[in-house]
Every structure is written in C-alpha cells, then in structure tokens.
C-alpha cells in the first residue's frame, strides 16, 4: 500500500490501476476521479473500489441526441472537470453519436447512430438534450429527414436507460413555455414508463451527469429519484436549504437593489426575486465550472431552472411570485390583495352609512325602553 492517504482510503485493486495506466490515464487522476464521484453519489468511501471497477472496464456505449436544444448541455459536458470531457470520451464512455463533437456528418453520422442502436440494443445509455416537438406531425424538428418524435421513441425504447440532460428534455423547458407554439414535450411524455432519469438545469451541471453515468455503471441501475424523476443525490434538497447566504435570510438581511451595500456584502437576494426557496438542485454544494461559482454567489438570484415549467412559474424572474393570471405585469398579488381589501372596506363602510339611516328594520322595537 502506498503512503499516500488518498490511495489507502480508496483501496482500488492494483490490477485495475495497472490496466487503467496502460491506457494512458494517470493513476492518481483515476483514483481522484473515483473518490470524488463516490462522494458525489453520497456513497461510503468503501464503495470506491466498486466505482473504480465499474468505470475502468466499461466504456459503456453512449448515444447523445439533440432535438429542440441550444446545445448548452453539450457545451456543459465539454466543461466537465471530474473527469474531463476528453477523459470521458477517450477513456470512460464510448460516445457513438454526438452532433456537436463528432467528426462524421450527414448519412455517415446517421449510420453511426443506427449501427450503435442495433449493435448495443438494450445496452447503450441514451442521452437526450432538448425537447421533442409534437406539432405539425413532428416537422418542427427533423434530423436526416426523420422527425425527432419518431427518432426519440426508437432510441429510448432500445436503450438500457435514458438520461435527459437539461430542463428541455426533462420537462419541455423553453420551447414548452406558454403558449408552447410547437407542442414541445419532455422525453417522459413522449415515451411514458421508460427507464428515464431527469437531470434538469439550464444547462445541466456536468458533474451531475458524470455522477449519474457512474452510478449506472457501478450499480447497473438508475439512481433513486424524486417524484419528478430527478436523482435524489443531486436534487434532494432546496437551494435555499444549502445556500451560503441562508444566514442572511434568517437574520433578515436583504439586498434591496442590485449594487446596493447589502448586495455588495453578500446579503440574501430574496427581495430581488431569488427562487432558491422553491428550487431543488445541488448548485450551492457543487457549483459550476470546476466549482468556481454559481448564480447566487455571483450576485444574481436563482431563476429556478431545474423546476418543471420554470419559464412560466418562476418568471417574472425579479419578483417573488408569478404574474397573476389575467392581470397586467405591474399588478402583483399584494397590489391586487390590498385593492381587494380596500374595496371591501369601502363597500361595507358605505353599506354601514346607508344602514344607519335605515328606519324600522331593527328587531324588538316593542321591547325598547328609553332610560332617563
């Protein structure tokens, strides 16, 4: 055993390390990756060996398709750090199809997808980015002349598991925002009942994607999810409950305007419309871009991007509550409520004045005795 404490804890069989090393991966990097992933999955350190065995052998086939997407999740994948995208592509998975990075194009690309689907039927992991439009017979998104709707159904049905990256694939996302002009659907809606795990976020946090892939490799099954199909290890808590500014919230210290002294001192962004209290995501703990930052840390409230329908329910983004349906942008729930209360008071006040002048409507007139 090595004297390096990390190596001792991680207890990865020598034989696996040798094999990995032969593929040009540094042994220390590999151990670091396995340990961090084990931690990300909230597993005990004794599981490191199992994680290592799973990732060392697998190079599981992965097909990454994009439908109504902005490629933001693909880009997020390129920013992955533990492991990096290069390590993932070259060492850990076998990326059979991914429009943003693949060398092939056109029919050759489509053929690669088809080959992978057939060769690894029931074995590949499908990653879907973007929502699937159902309007106009699927013509709102076609690839190689085939509609996304048709392509998605086929790929999901033949996959071992499907990982929806980003809010569009998970819940419909921006194309499904009101009035949903293209009839955009989430993958869950396109293929109900299929083994799907949702990794919403706009874009997905690459660390959560890696952790999910490794979870599947290690245990041969999808991670436990909440009622919306989101893995509990990443979406099990509200941002608010893990937020670094929570103490300011409880104390009652709020930034009232961007750039004011409270804002500069890192006070709570609640009054600026932060949606941390209604959003389940692990942003505060893992952050983005190698743990550099995350929205609240850099002074902008959370917009709730991992919640279903967030474009409609979390907007206006700089207000606490959604727009009251049927009222203008300026009419907040409180303005309407105060108006309602005031109107009630005025109406009953007038009613009272009128009632005071009303004659002969009081009861028991006959029993009234006037005192001197």
């Amino acid at each position, binding site marked *: 055993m090595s004297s390096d404490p990390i190596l001792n804890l991680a207890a990865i069989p020598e034989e696996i390390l040798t094999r990995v090393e032969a593929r040009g991966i540094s042994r220390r990097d590999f151990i670091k990756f396995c340990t961090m992933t084990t931690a990300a999955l909230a597993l005990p350190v004794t599981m490191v060996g199992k994680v290592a065995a799973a990732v060392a052998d697998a190079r599981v086939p992965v097909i990454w398709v994009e439908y109504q997407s902005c490629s933001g999740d693909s880009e997020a994948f390129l920013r992955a750090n533990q492991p990096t995208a290069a390590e993932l592509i070259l060492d850990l998975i076998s990326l059979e199809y991914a429009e943003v990075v693949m060398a092939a194009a056109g029919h050759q690309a489509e053929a690669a997808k088809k080959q992978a689907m057939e060769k690894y039927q029931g074995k590949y992991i499908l990653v879907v980015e973007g929502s699937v439009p159902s309007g106009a017979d699927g013509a709102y998104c*076609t690839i190689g*002349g085939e509609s996304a709707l048709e392509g998605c159904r086929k790929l999901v049905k033949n996959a071992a598991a499907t990982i929806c990256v980003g809010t569009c694939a998970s819940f419909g996302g921006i194309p499904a925002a009101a009035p949903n002009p293209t009839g955009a659907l989430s993958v869950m809606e396109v293929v109900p009942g299929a083994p799907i795990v949702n990794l919403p976020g706009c874009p997905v946090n690459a660390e959560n994607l890696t952790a999910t892939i490794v979870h599947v490799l290690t245990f041969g099954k999808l991670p436990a999810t909440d009622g919306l199909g989101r893995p509990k290890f990443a979406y099990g808590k509200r941002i608010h409950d893990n937020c670094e500014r929570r103490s300011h919230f409880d104390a009652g210290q709020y930034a009232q305007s961007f750039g004011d002294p409270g804002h500069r001192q890192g006070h709570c962004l609640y009054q600026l419309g932060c949606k941390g209290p209604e959003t389940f995501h692990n942003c505060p703990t893992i952050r983005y871009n190698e743990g550099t930052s*995350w929205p609240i840390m850099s*002074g902008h409230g959370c917009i709730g991007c991992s919640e279903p329908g967030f474009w409609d329910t979390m907007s206006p983004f700089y207000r606490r509550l959604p727009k009251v349906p049927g009222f203008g942008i300026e009419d907040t729930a409180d303005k309407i409520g105060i108006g309602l209360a005031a109107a009630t008071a005025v109406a009953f006040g007038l009613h009272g004045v009128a009632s005071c002048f009303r004659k002969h409507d009081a009861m028991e007139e006959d029993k009234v005795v006037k005192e001197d």
Partner: protein
Amino acid sequence: MAQRIAVDPITRIEGHLRIEARLDGGKIAEAWSSSTAFRGIETILKGRDPRDAHHFTQRFCGVCTTVHSMASIRAVEDALKIQIPDNARLIRNLIMGIQNVQDHVIHFYHLHALDWVDIVSALKADPAKTAQIAQSISDWPNSSPEYFQQVRDRIAAFAGTGRLGPFQNAYWGHPAYKLPPEVNLIGVAHYLEALEWQKDVIRIHAILGSKNPHPQTFLVGGMAIPVDPDSQNALNADKIALIRKLLRKARAFVEQVYIPDLLAVAPAYLDWAGIGGGTGNYLSYGDFPMDNSPGTGSLFFPRGIIMGKDLANVQPMDEKKISEYVTHSWYSYSKGDNAGLHPYDGETSHKYTGPRPPYEFLDTDGKYSWVKSPRYLDQPMEVGPLARVLVAYGKGVPEVKAAVDFVLGKLGAPASALFSTLGRTAARGVDCLVLAQKNEQWLDQLANNMGRGIYETFNKEKWDPSTWPREAQGFGYHEAPRGALGHWIRIEHGQIANYQAVVPSTWNAGPRDPKGQPGPYEAALVGTPIADPQKPLEILRTIHSFDPCLACAVHVLDGTGTEIVKVRAL
C-alpha cells in the same frame, strides 16, 4: 455527370442544418440551406416582462451563450434610454471578449479542424519530427518528442479498442486531406489541449457571471455582479487577479498555439483562398465600446458595411435598411409572403409547408427552411469574424490592420484572399488574436475604477416599470463570435409587444429571397469542387468556415433531380 447527393445532419455546429445542392462536373452548381428545427421563442416572449427577455433569448444558443443576453439587454436599454455605469460596460466587454476568444478556439479545434486534420494519419507521425516542426513554429512548451509520443500512444490505444466513438465513420483518408502526418499529430495534440484550455479560461464567465454556458448576471441597466474591493462577496482584488491569470493563459494559447497552427495548416490549403467567397457583401454592427459616450463612435470594432468586396469604401450601417423575407421560409406574413418586413414590424407566424417526415428531399422551389432571409437594402450580407475584420481593416483600426497584415504576410497572400473559405478561417484567428490581446486592457480599467472607489455596476433609475413610457422600442446590437446580431423589441404597457432577433446564422444561412438571390451559405458553396460525392468533405469545410449556429442537414441534387445518389457511410 450531374449528381444529387445528401448529407444530413451537418455535425459540429450548433443546431440542425440541412443543405441541399446540385453537383455538376465535380463542382457544386447550386445549393440550398435549410434549418430543420423551430422552437418559437419569439412567440413565447410576447406579453412577458422585458427585463426577463434576456434569460429567454440567451437560450437561443448554448454554444454562443451570452450573446443573446447582451443584445437583449441592449435592446431594452435602447428602448428605455438607460445609460449603464462604466463598470458594467467593462464587465460586458470582458465577458464578450473572452467569449469570442474561447469560442473561436473551440471552433477551430473542435468544430472545424477535423475538416483539415486527419486523425488517422496522425498515427503514422514520427514524434521526433513532430517535435521539431512544433518547435520551429512556436515556443509553446508542450513540444517534446516524449509529449507527442504520449499523445500518439493515447490515440493508438483508443483506436486499438476498435471503438472510435465520435471519430468513427468520418472522412478519414479523403484525398482532400493534405497535411503530413506530423502536422496532423500536432493538430490532434492541440485538439486535446484546447479541450482542457477552453474549460479553464471560460471560468472568467463563472467569476463574473456564475457559470458557463448561460451565465446569469446580465441586467437591464447593468450587471448583477457586485464590485467592492472590501467584500468577499463581490468582485475584489483576489478575483481580479484570477481573471488576469486566466486572460493571460487565454492569450498565451492563442499566440503560441492557435495562430501558429493556423499558419502551419493554411499553406497546405492555399487553394481554398480561391473557394467559397460567396456574396462579397459584409456587414458588421461593431462592438466593444471603449468609453461610455452615446452613439457608436467609440466602438473598438467599428460599425459599417462593405458592398461588392470594395474594401476601400466602408459605408455606414443603418439598421432601418434591414428587412426580412419569408418567401422560402416556413412562415407567413399578413402582407403576403413576398413582402419584406423591418424587424420592429416583424412577424413570426409559422406555417410548415414542407414534406411530411420522414422525407428524402425538400421542395427548394417553395418554402424550405425555418430560417428567414434578412437583407440589407435587399442585398444578402455575410456576417461574422470576416465581416468584422474586413470593416475594421477597411476603416484602418491599427490593431486589426497589424494582425491582418501579419497573417497575410506569413501566408504570402494578397488581401483579396480574405474573400474565401480560408479567409474566413484566417479572419477568425485574427479576431481572436486581437481580442485576446485587448481583454487585459479592460480588466486594467476595471481595476483602476475600483481603485478610485467607483463600484457602481447597475443603474436602477429605470428598473421599475412604473418609470417606463407607455410605448417604447429599441434595437440591441452585438458582434457575437459568429457575427452581427440584432434584437429588436417593442414594449407596450410594460410588456413585450413584439420581439425579433436577426442572428448571424440567419444572415448567413438564410434561404433565397423573392428575387431568387441565394443566401451567403448558398452563394459560397457554388463552385466548390467535390472530389467524392459520397464524402462531401468540401461542403463541410465551407459551411464550417462560417461557424454555423443552427440545426440542419445537407443535400446535394442533380441537374434534373431524377438520379438520386444517396451518400452513405462506408
């Protein structure tokens, strides 16, 4: 023999793009560009809070993330006449600057390089010879024979598994690949290095704006990142130092890797300086304000247009002269589909009339794309780094002039070589180099402001909608990595009444207009030689040189449209 071929989808771009083309005598005679995905975000924006618009528009694109936020907040600020603080201008310049630098490098290595660099050939390279070449073109430290040996072994081990993943089914071994194995190996090594580099330098976006892609820091009226040297929750000296380190890392890579590689690869492909020219009209909105004065006079990259490749005559640009056509796009206009509408009056009512999927070919006589056709004074215009650099060159911006002359000098090519596929790729390098060198200046100014106690990053004067006029309209411009980006907004009663975005790829990828004038992609493809219709690598070269940003597919058709040769994987 006339032939019809099809490539679908075009990969290594953002989005879904389809190109159909007719081949004659080994060359493209006609081409059609079609976007095959539609999301309707402009429709979704109607009735929403204009201050929220940038969150929505940013999701137009995750590759050129930030750019649609920038154009959107500028459109609202233009409509409401909001002056942003100087710090906000500098932070925006920094975000835009590093975005352009990072995006251009990703484009060159990860999206475009595989059109010129043959990975399979790199396996035959001699590491010692490779190291010799690498050391002769640059003093980048990663250039030892051992280093290249290691890269070659890693690729060989990967290829040895027989599972090539994203590198399978490509056009490896195509006769149009002209580089010696050693230069290919340098390309592969730097492909991997750039993959590491890009995720590191873009952390500047995370520092200034929480994350990348899709930073969350833009505001109508400024930026959300607070500036305060006395706070640990704001931009302070510590974070400035980290940004500086990353900016220097970015600059070093551009100066010592990207530009030398560009200059090493280009000589093998000088014939591409005569291919892929296209419309010859160029438009740049200009960007990177150097001070907070109103108007566009202070833009580092100036605003202007060039017609008919006339570099000596850069004309002023007036956004009022822009109109969009839908004659060949899957939309309808209330005034008839041959009308041209200015974006303020733009309509996005979609009407799909194309073939029902699955289909083989589009009807290119009718409507065939989800992209509209923008025109300037009814002329198709090319936008992008080339347009930006040409306008700046024509106007004599010293930094740009020096960089262009340096590159042209190294290649021994005249300025007219810029009007080509190779020119487009070289101009992107120039753009990247100039900005990589410029970025630190903006950081210095920001630090200087902080030193003088200027912390303001946000102008809250017009934040509350009750301060807004009943009706307002504004134009937001930006020079995105892929070119001139414009957003037009009309605000009524505090809500978005109309929103139109004319994005760089709309200018470039748009279909034909009512006069039948092809869009820039379509024009640029004409005359491109196709060595092997089964493997139309040449199409990818020209299309990728524009750095497309949409989801499409490419088809090539024969003269009569009868004989169909489908392009298949071998």
